[in-house]
């Protein structure tokens, strides 16, 4: 394909990780004071900022109001300088509109929207630097932001992309691996019940391998969920120290 050896004979990937190893995840909750919830998350070199406003009254046309649950409104955008080649528009193209739609669907499944009828929850995600796995980083960042906003969810939503090279599933693909013609699968998981909130796959893969790949993706998601849980716990500890409890 791209002439790159994605997995060496010794079982190491181009950035030195093992097949099932995730990139380093660093996150911080409550980055901004003005928003109801916000979080910043780095997964390797992919950096995303998520902000949550709401639940609040419906904005704009009231015809979208749902009488039995809250409307989730998402916007995904990329900073114009986030990619190696400058982007002309931060959002509004087909790909980012689709991404917004996917985020919306993911969080409609996870957030307990029925608790807030006739209201709206805005989730805005911005990619500051893109190095593969944009969707999953966005989902993870948005999860933290939703938690920071104090909106109840069924479970953490954790997402991860996995690829399939030489009969081996690779967890958490970076940009170089994504571009290398690998069949990649993005999966958003609610780890406790093993429910899949979103599933998306590109490129060819034989049906028989689907199960292994999904298995690997779910394991990776569970790994992410551990990290997220830690971040949340630490954040709460810090906050409780500050509030003196």
């Amino acid at each position, binding site marked *: 394909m791209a002439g790159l050896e994605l997995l060496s004979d010794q079982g190491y990937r181009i950035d030195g990780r093992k097949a099932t190893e995730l990139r380093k995840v*660093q996150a*911080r909750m409550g*980055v*901004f*004071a*003005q*928003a109801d919830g916000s979080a*910043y998350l*780095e997964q390797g*070199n992919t*950096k995303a*900022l998520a*902000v949550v*406003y709401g639940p609040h009254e419906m*904005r704009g046309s009231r015809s979208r109001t749902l009488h039995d649950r809250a409307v989730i*409104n998402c*916007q995904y*955008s990329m*900073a*114009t*300088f*986030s*990619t*190696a080649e*400058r982007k002309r528009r*931060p959002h*509004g193209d087909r790909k980012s509109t689709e991404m917004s739609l996917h985020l919306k669907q993911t969080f409609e499944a996870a957030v307990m929207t029925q608790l807030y009828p006739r209201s709206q929850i*805005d989730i*805005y995600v*911005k990619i*500051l*630097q*893109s190095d593969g796995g944009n969707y999953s980083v966005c989902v993870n960042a948005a999860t933290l932001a939703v938690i920071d906003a104090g909106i109840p969810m069924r479970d953490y939503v954790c997402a991860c992309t996995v690829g399939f090279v030489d009969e081996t599933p690779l967890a958490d693909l970076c940009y170089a691996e994504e571009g290398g013609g690998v069949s990649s699968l993005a999966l958003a998981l609610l780890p406790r019940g093993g429910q899949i909130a979103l599933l998306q796959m590109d490129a060819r893969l034989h049906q028989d391998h689907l199960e292994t790949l999904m298995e690997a993706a779910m394991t990776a998601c569970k790994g992410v969920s551990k990290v997220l849980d830690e971040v949340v716990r630490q954040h709460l500890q810090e906050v409780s120290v500050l509030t003196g409890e």
Partner: protein
Amino acid sequence: MATVQVSEAEKVYILHGIRDDLRVDGRGCEDYRHTEIETDVVSNTDGSAKVTLGHTAVLVGIKADLGKPKPMLPKEGYLEFFVDCSANATPEFEGRGGEELGTELSNTLYKVFNNKHSVDLKSLCISPGEHCWVLYVDVLLLQCDGNLYDAISIAIKAALFSTKIPKVHISADEEGAKEIELSDDPYDCMRLNVENVPCIVTLCKVGHRHVVDATLQEKACSVASLIISVTQKGTVTCMRKVGGGSLDPESIFEMTEAGKRVGKALHAPLMDLLQQEERLGTKRQKVGFLG
């Protein structure tokens, strides 16, 4: 623009406070809020800076691209400004909501840099009429709490300071066709002289006085403000009245004078800070948004 609702009583309180040179957050009329600057925060760019001014947060990324010089100015490179008012800052900016403010800000930036000395455009030229560097200055608004202009201009100055443009060599082959080669060495790069890059000072007329670095609440009390971009030497590169009210000529003269004073005073510590950070070199612990 992100706006706040301020009640009449609050307005009176703010107005009286400013009359006595004491603002709600304890500052004087010509004081800036707590400011944090960090350069080189996004590795995909050639230069970047993040500035927080109170609760206002701005991220600027600069990318240098090879382009063709403008036909009227074949010996110069050029700068392109783009301000992205993202929905992160406020839900009002969702979709195309931020576009209006974005164009307003970027148009002002074009005006601010519309002179010969701010950035040496000639140094951005590679081969006249054919190739030049185009610096894309992309501003990302992350949060707004008033005084966007000042925060953006400080961030742009810092980002330009940290910009490293790779050196290029032009080699001509036998047929005379020119080829451009980028230098492989990442340390072999060109830096920009930012000495003359101006900083914008926004003066908000509140009551009979004017304040520097107004918060959203203070902005809501004022009818008009004046933005002045001042270079280190004190020359003004752009002046503009914004807001729905009008100003007395005398107060404009006063405000210009104050703007120049404040602007001049802003440059020295900013340059100091940037050089200090530069000296730390690669050892510097990058904080970004994690701190």
